[in-house]
Protein backbone atom coordinates (compact mmCIF):
# COMPACT_ATOMS: atom_id res chain seq x y z
CA UNK A 1 0.00 0.00 0.00
CA UNK A 2 2.84 2.28 0.92
CA UNK A 3 4.61 1.45 -2.28
CA UNK A 4 1.44 2.10 -4.22
CA UNK A 5 0.99 5.62 -2.87
CA UNK A 6 4.67 6.29 -3.38
CA UNK A 7 4.63 5.27 -7.01
CA UNK A 8 1.43 7.14 -7.68
CA UNK A 9 3.08 10.18 -6.17
CA UNK A 10 5.99 9.79 -8.54
CA UNK A 11 3.56 9.37 -11.42
CA UNK A 12 1.82 12.54 -10.40
CA UNK A 13 5.13 14.39 -10.15
CA UNK A 14 6.18 13.17 -13.54
CA UNK A 15 2.87 14.08 -15.13
CA UNK A 16 3.23 17.54 -13.65
CA UNK A 17 6.72 17.47 -15.01
CA UNK A 18 5.39 16.99 -18.51
CA UNK A 19 3.00 19.89 -18.23
CA UNK A 20 6.11 21.98 -17.68
CA UNK A 21 7.52 21.00 -21.07
CA UNK A 22 8.18 23.66 -23.65
CA UNK A 23 5.05 25.36 -24.89
CA UNK A 24 3.91 28.00 -27.34
CA UNK A 25 0.70 29.71 -28.31
CA UNK A 26 -1.19 29.42 -31.56
CA UNK A 27 -4.52 30.75 -32.68
CA UNK A 28 -7.16 28.18 -33.37
CA UNK A 29 -6.90 26.82 -36.87
CA UNK A 30 -3.41 28.20 -37.25
CA UNK A 31 -0.88 25.84 -38.72
CA UNK A 32 2.42 25.29 -37.00
CA UNK A 33 5.20 23.36 -38.67
CA UNK A 34 8.48 21.98 -37.45
CA UNK A 35 11.25 20.47 -39.48
CA UNK A 36 13.30 17.48 -38.43
CA UNK A 37 16.29 16.59 -40.52
CA UNK A 38 16.94 12.96 -39.78
CA UNK A 39 18.73 9.95 -41.27
CA UNK A 40 16.68 6.96 -42.39
CA UNK A 41 15.41 4.34 -39.96
CA UNK A 42 15.26 6.81 -37.11
CA UNK A 43 12.41 6.94 -34.67
CA UNK A 44 10.83 10.23 -33.72
CA UNK A 45 8.54 10.53 -30.74
CA UNK A 46 6.33 13.56 -30.40
CA UNK A 47 4.43 14.32 -27.23
CA UNK A 48 1.94 17.10 -27.12
CA UNK A 49 -0.83 18.53 -25.04
CA UNK A 50 -3.22 21.28 -26.03
CA UNK A 51 -4.93 23.68 -23.68
CA UNK A 52 -7.64 26.12 -24.63
CA UNK A 53 -7.66 29.68 -23.39
CA UNK A 54 -10.47 30.26 -20.96
CA UNK A 55 -11.67 33.87 -21.12
CA UNK A 56 -13.62 33.55 -17.85
CA UNK A 57 -10.63 32.77 -15.68
CA UNK A 58 -8.06 34.41 -17.91
CA UNK A 59 -6.00 31.25 -17.84
CA UNK A 60 -5.73 28.06 -19.77
CA UNK A 61 -8.02 25.13 -19.16
CA UNK A 62 -5.96 22.14 -18.12
CA UNK A 63 -7.96 19.80 -20.28
CA UNK A 64 -10.08 20.61 -23.24
CA UNK A 65 -11.67 17.41 -24.48
CA UNK A 66 -13.48 19.12 -27.35
CA UNK A 67 -10.27 20.02 -29.13
CA UNK A 68 -8.56 17.73 -31.56
CA UNK A 69 -5.20 18.23 -33.16
CA UNK A 70 -4.59 17.39 -36.73
CA UNK A 71 -1.07 16.11 -37.12
CA UNK A 72 0.57 15.69 -40.47
CA UNK A 73 4.04 14.35 -41.18
CA UNK A 74 5.60 14.60 -44.61
CA UNK A 75 8.80 12.93 -45.75
CA UNK A 76 11.49 14.65 -47.88
CA UNK A 77 9.69 13.65 -51.10
CA UNK A 78 6.56 15.39 -49.85
CA UNK A 79 4.71 12.13 -49.33
CA UNK A 80 2.39 11.96 -46.38
CA UNK A 81 3.75 9.62 -43.70
CA UNK A 82 1.04 10.30 -41.22
CA UNK A 83 -2.04 12.47 -41.27
CA UNK A 84 -4.64 12.01 -38.60
CA UNK A 85 -6.72 13.84 -36.07
CA UNK A 86 -5.68 13.15 -32.51
CA UNK A 87 -7.21 14.20 -29.24
CA UNK A 88 -6.06 17.17 -27.22
CA UNK A 89 -3.24 15.17 -25.71
CA UNK A 90 -1.20 12.40 -27.13
CA UNK A 91 1.93 10.71 -28.29
CA UNK A 92 2.82 10.18 -31.92
CA UNK A 93 5.73 8.18 -33.15
CA UNK A 94 7.01 7.46 -36.60
CA UNK A 95 10.11 5.94 -38.14
CA UNK A 96 11.71 7.53 -41.13
CA UNK A 97 12.19 5.49 -44.30
CA UNK A 98 13.96 8.08 -46.40
CA UNK A 99 16.65 10.37 -45.02
CA UNK A 100 16.08 14.10 -45.12
CA UNK A 101 13.84 16.85 -43.92
CA UNK A 102 10.63 15.63 -42.37
CA UNK A 103 8.02 18.29 -41.87
CA UNK A 104 5.65 17.94 -38.97
CA UNK A 105 2.61 20.18 -38.99
CA UNK A 106 0.00 20.61 -36.32
CA UNK A 107 -3.26 22.47 -36.39
CA UNK A 108 -6.45 22.23 -34.39
CA UNK A 109 -9.63 21.00 -35.97
CA UNK A 110 -11.24 24.27 -35.23
CA UNK A 111 -14.94 24.64 -34.83
CA UNK A 112 -16.29 28.02 -35.78
CA UNK A 113 -17.57 28.51 -32.23
CA UNK A 114 -14.13 28.88 -30.82
CA UNK A 115 -12.28 30.35 -33.75
CA UNK A 116 -9.93 33.14 -32.93
CA UNK A 117 -9.22 31.94 -29.44
CA UNK A 118 -5.76 31.05 -28.26
CA UNK A 119 -4.38 27.57 -27.79
CA UNK A 120 -1.42 26.64 -25.69
CA UNK A 121 0.52 23.71 -27.10
CA UNK A 122 3.02 21.79 -24.98
CA UNK A 123 5.42 20.03 -27.25
CA UNK A 124 8.28 17.64 -26.88
CA UNK A 125 10.08 16.04 -29.81
CA UNK A 126 12.67 13.34 -29.23
CA UNK A 127 14.76 11.89 -32.01
CA UNK A 128 16.83 8.73 -32.30
CA UNK A 129 18.62 7.58 -29.22
CA UNK A 130 16.81 10.15 -27.07
CA UNK A 131 13.54 8.51 -28.00
CA UNK A 132 14.59 5.17 -26.52
CA UNK A 133 13.05 4.46 -23.18
CA UNK A 134 15.83 2.75 -21.24
CA UNK A 135 13.79 2.04 -18.14
CA UNK A 136 11.47 -0.01 -20.26
CA UNK A 137 14.36 -1.75 -22.00
CA UNK A 138 15.92 -2.64 -18.65
CA UNK A 139 12.71 -4.17 -17.41
CA UNK A 140 11.94 -6.06 -20.56
CA UNK A 141 15.38 -7.53 -21.15
CA UNK A 142 16.36 -7.88 -17.49
CA UNK A 143 19.55 -5.92 -17.89
CA UNK A 144 21.90 -4.86 -15.11
CA UNK A 145 22.96 -1.25 -14.76
CA UNK A 146 26.18 -1.77 -16.62
CA UNK A 147 24.51 -3.73 -19.37
CA UNK A 148 21.98 -0.97 -19.70
CA UNK A 149 24.72 1.62 -19.93
CA UNK A 150 26.46 -0.42 -22.62
CA UNK A 151 23.16 -0.68 -24.46
CA UNK A 152 22.86 3.08 -24.36
CA UNK A 153 26.41 3.49 -25.62
CA UNK A 154 25.70 1.09 -28.47
CA UNK A 155 22.58 3.02 -29.42
CA UNK A 156 24.53 6.23 -29.39
CA UNK A 157 27.23 4.78 -31.61
CA UNK A 158 24.55 3.49 -33.99
CA UNK A 159 23.01 6.90 -34.16
CA UNK A 160 26.37 8.52 -34.84
CA UNK A 161 27.07 6.02 -37.61
CA UNK A 162 23.69 6.62 -39.20
CA UNK A 163 24.16 10.35 -38.99
CA UNK A 164 27.62 9.98 -40.52
CA UNK A 165 26.36 8.02 -43.52
CA UNK A 166 23.53 10.48 -43.95
CA UNK A 167 26.12 13.23 -43.82
CA UNK A 168 27.91 11.56 -46.69
CA UNK A 169 24.69 11.45 -48.68
CA UNK A 170 24.09 15.16 -48.08
CA UNK A 171 27.65 16.03 -48.90
CA UNK A 172 27.12 14.31 -52.25
CA UNK A 173 24.07 16.44 -52.91
CA UNK A 174 25.96 19.56 -51.91
CA UNK A 175 28.80 18.67 -54.23
CA UNK A 176 26.41 17.97 -57.10
CA UNK A 177 24.84 21.37 -56.64
CA UNK A 178 28.22 23.07 -56.59
CA UNK A 179 29.39 21.18 -59.65
CA UNK A 180 26.20 22.07 -61.47
CA UNK A 181 26.70 25.74 -60.59
CA UNK A 182 30.27 25.53 -61.77
CA UNK A 183 29.36 24.00 -65.11
CA UNK A 184 26.46 26.40 -65.59
CA UNK A 185 28.76 29.36 -65.04
CA UNK A 186 31.31 27.91 -67.47
CA UNK A 187 28.84 27.09 -70.24
CA UNK A 188 26.98 30.27 -69.83
CA UNK A 189 30.09 32.40 -70.13
CA UNK A 190 31.09 30.52 -73.28
CA UNK A 191 27.60 30.92 -74.72
CA UNK A 192 27.57 34.58 -73.75
CA UNK A 193 30.85 35.21 -75.54
CA UNK A 194 29.51 33.43 -78.61
CA UNK A 195 26.33 35.46 -78.55
CA UNK A 196 28.29 38.71 -78.17
CA UNK A 197 30.59 37.92 -81.08
CA UNK A 198 27.68 36.92 -83.34
CA UNK A 199 25.66 39.98 -82.47
CA UNK A 200 28.65 42.29 -82.96
CA UNK A 201 29.35 40.79 -86.37
CA UNK A 202 25.72 41.04 -87.40
CA UNK A 203 25.49 44.65 -86.20
CA UNK A 204 28.54 45.68 -88.25
CA UNK A 205 27.30 43.90 -91.34
CA UNK A 206 23.86 45.36 -91.01
CA UNK A 207 25.08 48.92 -90.40
CA UNK A 208 27.54 48.74 -93.22
CA UNK A 209 24.90 47.72 -95.72
CA UNK A 210 22.59 50.37 -94.31
CA UNK A 211 25.16 53.17 -94.73
CA UNK A 212 25.98 51.97 -98.19
CA UNK A 213 22.33 52.02 -99.13
CA UNK A 214 22.00 55.56 -97.75
CA UNK A 215 25.14 56.57 -99.61
CA UNK A 216 26.73 57.89 -96.44
CA UNK A 217 30.05 56.18 -97.01
Amino acid at each position, binding site marked *: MNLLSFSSLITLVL*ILDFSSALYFHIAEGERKCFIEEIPDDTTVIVNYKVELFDPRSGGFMPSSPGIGMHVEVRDPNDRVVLSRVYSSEGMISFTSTTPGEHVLCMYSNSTSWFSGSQLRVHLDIQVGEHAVD*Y*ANVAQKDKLSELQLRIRQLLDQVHQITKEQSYQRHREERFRQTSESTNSRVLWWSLLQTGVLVCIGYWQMRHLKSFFEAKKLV
Partner: protein
Amino acid sequence: MLITPLLFTILVTLISGIFSKSVELTFELPDNAVECFYQEIEQNTSASLEYQVITGGQYDVDVKVEGPNKQIIYQQQKMQYDSHPFTAQHTGVYKVCFSNEFSTFSHKLVYMELNVGPEQPLPGIGEHATVLTQLETSADEIHSALNRIIDHQTHHRLKEAQGRKAAEHLNERVLWWSTFETIAIVCVAFAQILILKNFFSDRPTLYNKM
Protein backbone atom coordinates in the same frame (compact mmCIF):
# COMPACT_ATOMS: atom_id res chain seq x y z
CA MET B 1 -2.29 -5.87 -4.93
CA LEU B 2 1.18 -6.50 -6.25
CA ILE B 3 0.20 -5.87 -9.84
CA THR B 4 -0.85 -2.27 -9.33
CA PRO B 5 2.49 -0.94 -8.00
CA LEU B 6 4.25 -2.76 -10.79
CA LEU B 7 1.93 -1.18 -13.32
CA PHE B 8 2.59 2.17 -11.77
CA THR B 9 6.33 1.72 -11.88
CA ILE B 10 6.12 0.75 -15.53
CA LEU B 11 4.02 3.82 -16.19
CA VAL B 12 6.41 5.99 -14.21
CA THR B 13 9.48 4.69 -15.98
CA LEU B 14 7.72 5.04 -19.31
CA ILE B 15 6.96 8.66 -18.65
CA SER B 16 10.31 9.52 -17.10
CA GLY B 17 12.13 7.90 -19.97
CA ILE B 18 10.39 10.00 -22.55
CA PHE B 19 10.22 13.40 -20.97
CA SER B 20 13.77 14.52 -20.56
CA LYS B 21 13.81 18.25 -20.59
CA SER B 22 15.77 18.96 -23.69
CA VAL B 23 14.04 19.96 -26.82
CA GLU B 24 15.33 20.68 -30.30
CA LEU B 25 13.09 22.45 -32.76
CA THR B 26 13.55 23.71 -36.27
CA PHE B 27 10.83 26.09 -37.30
CA GLU B 28 9.96 28.58 -39.99
CA LEU B 29 9.98 32.24 -39.13
CA PRO B 30 7.93 34.26 -41.63
CA ASP B 31 8.83 37.88 -42.36
CA ASN B 32 7.77 40.44 -39.76
CA ALA B 33 6.93 37.65 -37.34
CA VAL B 34 7.82 36.86 -33.75
CA GLU B 35 7.84 33.32 -32.42
CA CYS B 36 7.89 32.80 -28.69
CA PHE B 37 8.44 29.62 -26.72
CA TYR B 38 7.82 29.24 -23.03
CA GLN B 39 9.45 26.92 -20.55
CA GLU B 40 8.92 26.57 -16.85
CA ILE B 41 12.24 26.39 -15.03
CA GLU B 42 12.81 25.78 -11.32
CA GLN B 43 15.06 28.01 -9.28
CA ASN B 44 18.81 27.31 -9.47
CA THR B 45 18.47 25.02 -12.47
CA SER B 46 21.03 25.53 -15.14
CA ALA B 47 19.70 25.88 -18.63
CA SER B 48 21.18 26.63 -22.00
CA LEU B 49 19.81 28.00 -25.21
CA GLU B 50 21.40 27.33 -28.55
CA TYR B 51 20.17 28.62 -31.87
CA GLN B 52 21.20 29.00 -35.46
CA VAL B 53 19.57 30.49 -38.54
CA ILE B 54 19.64 27.93 -41.35
CA THR B 55 18.29 29.93 -44.28
CA GLY B 56 16.92 33.29 -45.21
CA GLY B 57 18.18 36.81 -45.70
CA GLN B 58 21.44 37.59 -43.99
CA TYR B 59 21.04 34.55 -41.72
CA ASP B 60 20.25 36.77 -38.76
CA VAL B 61 17.54 36.95 -36.14
CA ASP B 62 16.76 38.93 -33.00
CA VAL B 63 16.72 36.77 -29.88
CA LYS B 64 15.46 37.55 -26.42
CA VAL B 65 15.21 35.46 -23.26
CA GLU B 66 12.95 36.85 -20.56
CA GLY B 67 12.63 35.66 -16.98
CA PRO B 68 9.45 35.34 -14.92
CA ASN B 69 9.64 38.94 -13.65
CA LYS B 70 10.09 40.29 -17.14
CA GLN B 71 13.79 40.75 -16.50
CA ILE B 72 15.87 40.29 -19.61
CA ILE B 73 18.38 37.49 -19.34
CA TYR B 74 19.72 37.55 -22.83
CA GLN B 75 19.11 39.88 -25.73
CA GLN B 76 20.91 39.97 -29.04
CA GLN B 77 20.07 41.53 -32.33
CA LYS B 78 20.81 40.22 -35.80
CA MET B 79 22.63 37.15 -34.59
CA GLN B 80 23.43 34.23 -36.87
CA TYR B 81 24.06 31.64 -34.16
CA ASP B 82 24.94 31.57 -30.53
CA SER B 83 24.61 29.57 -27.37
CA HIS B 84 23.84 31.04 -24.01
CA PRO B 85 23.99 29.14 -20.73
CA PHE B 86 22.17 30.64 -17.78
CA THR B 87 20.99 29.70 -14.31
CA ALA B 88 17.41 30.35 -13.36
CA GLN B 89 17.23 32.89 -10.53
CA HIS B 90 13.55 32.34 -9.86
CA THR B 91 11.07 29.57 -10.43
CA GLY B 92 8.69 30.48 -13.19
CA VAL B 93 8.02 30.67 -16.85
CA TYR B 94 10.90 31.71 -19.04
CA LYS B 95 10.16 33.12 -22.45
CA VAL B 96 12.37 32.71 -25.50
CA CYS B 97 11.50 34.89 -28.46
CA PHE B 98 12.83 34.89 -32.00
CA SER B 99 11.96 37.97 -33.96
CA ASN B 100 12.20 38.69 -37.63
CA GLU B 101 10.53 42.09 -37.34
CA PHE B 102 13.38 43.98 -38.93
CA SER B 103 13.12 41.97 -42.10
CA THR B 104 10.27 42.74 -44.46
CA PHE B 105 10.61 40.04 -47.03
CA SER B 106 12.98 37.29 -46.00
CA HIS B 107 11.46 34.23 -44.52
CA LYS B 108 13.78 32.26 -42.28
CA LEU B 109 14.42 28.80 -40.93
CA VAL B 110 15.65 28.75 -37.35
CA TYR B 111 17.00 25.90 -35.26
CA MET B 112 16.69 26.11 -31.52
CA GLU B 113 17.75 23.85 -28.69
CA LEU B 114 16.75 24.43 -25.11
CA ASN B 115 18.33 22.28 -22.43
CA VAL B 116 17.05 22.47 -18.90
CA GLY B 117 18.77 20.81 -15.99
CA PRO B 118 21.23 17.97 -16.07
CA GLU B 119 20.72 14.91 -18.23
CA GLN B 120 18.39 12.37 -16.73
CA PRO B 121 20.40 9.44 -15.40
CA LEU B 122 19.65 5.91 -16.47
CA PRO B 123 17.29 4.14 -14.14
CA GLY B 124 19.18 2.57 -11.27
CA ILE B 125 22.47 4.27 -11.94
CA GLY B 126 21.78 7.35 -9.85
CA GLU B 127 21.13 5.41 -6.65
CA HIS B 128 24.43 3.59 -6.48
CA ALA B 129 25.45 2.42 -3.02
CA THR B 130 28.97 1.28 -3.74
CA VAL B 131 31.82 3.13 -5.40
CA LEU B 132 31.76 2.95 -9.19
CA THR B 133 34.05 0.37 -10.69
CA GLN B 134 36.57 1.37 -13.29
CA LEU B 135 34.44 -0.13 -16.00
CA GLU B 136 31.44 1.91 -14.93
CA THR B 137 33.43 5.13 -14.77
CA SER B 138 34.85 4.63 -18.20
CA ALA B 139 31.40 3.74 -19.52
CA ASP B 140 30.21 7.05 -18.10
CA GLU B 141 33.09 8.84 -19.74
CA ILE B 142 32.37 7.22 -23.07
CA HIS B 143 28.74 8.23 -22.70
CA SER B 144 29.58 11.88 -22.18
CA ALA B 145 32.13 11.77 -25.00
CA LEU B 146 29.51 10.33 -27.32
CA ASN B 147 27.09 13.02 -26.23
CA ARG B 148 29.65 15.61 -27.21
CA ILE B 149 30.10 13.90 -30.58
CA ILE B 150 26.35 14.02 -31.16
CA ASP B 151 26.33 17.72 -30.28
CA HIS B 152 29.15 18.40 -32.70
CA GLN B 153 27.38 16.38 -35.36
CA THR B 154 24.26 18.47 -34.88
CA HIS B 155 26.27 21.63 -35.19
CA HIS B 156 28.00 20.33 -38.29
CA ARG B 157 24.71 19.18 -39.78
CA LEU B 158 23.26 22.66 -39.36
CA LYS B 159 26.33 24.32 -40.85
CA GLU B 160 26.19 21.92 -43.76
CA ALA B 161 22.48 22.60 -44.24
CA GLN B 162 23.23 26.31 -44.28
CA GLY B 163 25.96 25.88 -46.88
CA ARG B 164 23.93 23.49 -48.98
CA LYS B 165 20.89 25.73 -49.05
CA ALA B 166 23.04 28.71 -49.99
CA ALA B 167 24.60 26.68 -52.81
CA GLU B 168 21.20 25.57 -54.10
CA HIS B 169 20.02 29.14 -54.03
CA LEU B 170 23.13 30.29 -55.89
CA ASN B 171 22.67 27.59 -58.51
CA GLU B 172 19.13 28.70 -59.17
CA ARG B 173 20.10 32.35 -59.31
CA VAL B 174 22.90 31.63 -61.79
CA LEU B 175 20.40 29.88 -64.05
CA TRP B 176 17.82 32.66 -63.95
CA TRP B 177 20.27 35.47 -64.16
CA SER B 178 22.09 33.98 -67.14
CA THR B 179 18.83 33.41 -69.00
CA PHE B 180 17.79 36.95 -68.32
CA GLU B 181 21.20 38.33 -69.29
CA THR B 182 21.19 36.52 -72.63
CA ILE B 183 17.74 37.86 -73.45
CA ALA B 184 18.86 41.36 -72.42
CA ILE B 185 21.91 41.26 -74.69
CA VAL B 186 19.86 40.23 -77.71
CA CYS B 187 17.27 42.95 -77.03
CA VAL B 188 19.91 45.63 -76.55
CA ALA B 189 21.61 44.63 -79.80
CA PHE B 190 18.40 45.03 -81.80
CA ALA B 191 17.53 48.27 -80.06
CA GLN B 192 20.98 49.72 -80.81
CA ILE B 193 20.60 49.02 -84.51
CA LEU B 194 17.10 50.50 -84.65
CA ILE B 195 18.16 53.67 -82.86
CA LEU B 196 21.28 54.11 -84.95
CA LYS B 197 19.30 53.68 -88.13
CA ASN B 198 16.89 56.28 -86.92
CA PHE B 199 19.69 58.84 -86.55
CA PHE B 200 20.41 58.64 -90.24
CA SER B 201 16.94 58.25 -91.62
CA ASP B 202 15.37 61.11 -93.66
CA ARG B 203 12.07 61.10 -91.87
CA PRO B 204 12.08 63.33 -88.79
CA THR B 205 11.92 61.17 -85.70
CA LEU B 206 12.34 61.63 -82.03
CA TYR B 207 16.07 60.99 -82.19
CA ASN B 208 17.24 63.30 -84.95
CA LYS B 209 15.34 66.25 -83.51
CA MET B 210 17.59 66.16 -80.48
